[in-house]
């Protein structure tokens, strides 16, 4: 009975919402890329965005840390709230926002600097460490969290670009979590990696959801099925279906979702 109650409470706690999007539209010039999307992204869970190329999933992902601000012709309307706070409000500094909402890209993009500097750069500019010892600690903790510490601890001064693709991507994840973000956005983080490196990154993503809210865009439906708890299917700028990943992959509601995940529309 007590166990039941505890697990119920855990379910309730897991169900809380980290990010709320309401009526979000995105335009690139005249192109209407995202059409009135409403979605609640669950705290400490992995949410996968899937859909054919050009469906708007990456565009929507980039709204969550205001990466679209950097594109001149891009216009975002509607509301996106992080923990109830409007991230597009005037007083929100996008740079601070991106420290809270980190991002990992398709191609591993370490800075052309040492492994240590790659990870310490963010905490340094955001003033998260008072001294070298604290910074060392953040670097070690982040690299451990990114499941790459044992592979690089003896060569922290070596260039990050000298690592293998899979190691570079885990380094970038370590770099992203060094600023202690709450949300991690991942835009096709495994598409440049071999199957073993992919499995390692997927394992890492599954561990990261203990502490972070993860949103991942992926072209691999099997990857979405493997790593996520919630899946959102985008098509032609619309959010067609959003729900539990196991439901989406066994019995989706919308025929367009079914067509896509079973390989009937590209």
């Amino acid at each position, binding site marked *: 009975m007590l166990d039941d109650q505890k697990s119920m409470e855990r379910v309730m706690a897991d169900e809380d919402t980290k990010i709320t999007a309401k009526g979000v539209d995105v335009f690139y010039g005249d192109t209407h890329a995202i059409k009135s999307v409403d979605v609640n992204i669950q705290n400490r869970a992995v949410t996968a965005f899937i859909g054919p190329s050009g469906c708007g999933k990456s565009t929507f992902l980039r709204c969550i840390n205001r990466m679209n601000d950097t594109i001149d012709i891009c216009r975002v309307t509607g509301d996106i709230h992080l923990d109830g706070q409007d991230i597009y409000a005037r007083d929100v500094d996008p740079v601070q926002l991106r420290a809270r909402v980190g991002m990992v890209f398709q191609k591993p993009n370490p800075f052309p600097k040492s492994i240590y500097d790659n990870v310490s750069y963010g905490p340094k500019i955001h003033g998260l460490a008072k001294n070298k010892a604290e910074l060392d600690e953040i670097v070690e903790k982040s690299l451990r969290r990114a499941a790459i510490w044992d592979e690089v601890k003896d060569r922290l001064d070596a260039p990050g670009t000298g690592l293998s693709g899979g190691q570079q991507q885990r380094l970038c994840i370590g770099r992203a979590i060094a600023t202690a973000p709450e949300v991690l956005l991942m835009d096709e983080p495994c598409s440049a990696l071999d199957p073993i490196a992919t499995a390692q990154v997927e394992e890492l993503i599954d561990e990261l959801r203990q502490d972070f809210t993860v949103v991942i865009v992926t072209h691999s439906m099997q990857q979405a099925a493997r790593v996520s708890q919630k899946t959102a299917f985008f098509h032609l700028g619309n959010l067609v279906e959003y729900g539990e990943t196991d439901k989406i*992959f*066994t*019995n989706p509601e919308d*025929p367009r979702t079914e067509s896509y995940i*079973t390989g*009937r*529309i590209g």
Partner: protein
Amino acid sequence: MHDAHIASAFDRDLESIQALIMKMGGLVETAISDGAKALEMRDTELAGTVRKNDKLIDALEEQVATEVARVIAMRSPTAGDLRTVLSVLKISGNLERVGDYAKNMAKRTTVLSEMQPVNSTGASIRRMTKLVNVMMKDALDAYIQRDADLAADVRARDTEVDQMYNALFREFLTHMLEDPRNITPCMHLHFIAKNIERMGDHVTSIAEQVIYLVHGEVPEDERDKADSTSYVSTAG
């Protein structure tokens, strides 16, 4: 939903598995009707054919299992495709069991043909077999047409089979109480009736797979079960 996969080989794989199921279904329908006919006509030769043909059904079941394993490994089916391969696997298992029951009926026919017929029970068994065979045909049609309503109808009809079995059970008891010489044939006939009743259960299971295939959920409502023979007693 679009009908065809982008990878057309996937469609061919699924079609060929479903063709195997239909082939199995055809053989099983024949086994049921030939089995009943052999029993009624005391045709031991036809009974032999039913027994022999069961090997074909068994072989097809194995082929379905192999093909399904291959599709799961190679194509990672999801959603409707996943439900298709899972239901195919279960349906082939059901068909194989029904084939076994028909074979058993044929075996007992060989013995029964050397005995005095027990009056009127032959016709009752024939009616029951006919009912199950129509259910089987409808269940397979429902599968091909993805017709959940027809499947639900088949599922409901199993009650009739159960009721017929109850009636036969009592009838056999009566004959056995009347004359001990009836015991041997009635025991064989009772097993046949029980096997036909079990065939009905397997057809019901096929119908439930069709509903799962179409709606993604197995029906939740408890089905009426009319087999009450577990509580029948001749004492007192």
